[in-house]
């Protein structure tokens, strides 16, 4: 799965996610990626999220919306992502990752799997990582 989130100079946010699914999956099996509120969600009032990971687990906790609800309650984008991924791990033993951007330009790349390739550009500076806590 791949994804992107952005906030533009006007303060509008957007998200996008795309995937080929998992190898050898049942015909017709759909994971979280195309499901609104799970594989992605965007709202100028709270932020934009794109998720990746174990599809069925992300669906069960509606991970993208869960992250934004934590942000709406005042958490930072990093805290909100960590809380939501922790909840998914505890409740349905699923692992995954999420990238988040807020309308004010806060951003995070958080994951509970072994690795997640990510990159961010802010004010022309490029950030990127692969390992946990990088």
């Amino acid at each position, binding site marked *: *799965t791949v994804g992107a989130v952005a906030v533009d100079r006007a303060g*509008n946010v957007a998200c996008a996610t795309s995937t*080929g699914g998992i190898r050898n999956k049942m015909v017709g099996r759909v994971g979280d990626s195309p499901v609104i509120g799970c594989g992605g969600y965007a709202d100028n009032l709270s932020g934009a999220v794109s998720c990746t990971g174990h599809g069925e687990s992300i669906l069960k906790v509606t991970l993208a919306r869960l992250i934004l609800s934590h942000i709406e309650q005042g958490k930072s984008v990093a805290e909100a992502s960590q809380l939501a991924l922790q909840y998914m791990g505890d409740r349905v033993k699923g692992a995954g990752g999420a990238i988040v951007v807020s309308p004010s330009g806060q951003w995070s*790349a958080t994951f509970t799997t072994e690795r997640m390739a990510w*990159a961010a550009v802010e004010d022309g500076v490029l950030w990127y990582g*692969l390992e946990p806590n990088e």
Partner: protein
Amino acid sequence: MSAVLVVHGGAWAIPNDLAQASVEGVKAAACGGFAVLKAGGSALDAVEAAVMGLEDNGVFNAGHGAALNTDGEVELDSIIMDGRTLGCGAVSSVKNIAHPVSLARAVMEKTSHVMLTDRGANLFAESIGVATVPTEALVTELERTEWKKNKTYMAGVVEDFNAQAHD
């Protein structure tokens, strides 16, 4: 207000031989998407451009690097959402489409629906003149090799996701 763009290339046990290419791929996609923002483009345009860049890169499990299902087919899923209007478009189990994210955007902008699936998504693509590509164009040699190995030695869908499988 500073513009920001973040991309990901999937969260899983990325093997060492894909690590470098994965990092290079997400860096390139982030720069490509940010160029749209820098030129004054919208966040929606930027995320579409960034994800298209990743769909074109066979390193990632989307578009031209898609995984094969148990029948050896490619079934692609995608979503795009506009935070300004809550407009949203998605496709699922669509076949032979090089840029599912652009088809998802067309669903958002040309229909009153949020998601179209399978044959319906392909009929919609055809109705708006989106070209199809052969399945072979969407599958790398590595994926075909791994799929055959998977088929031969592991019955059913690999579920030990946290260590072996990817999404």
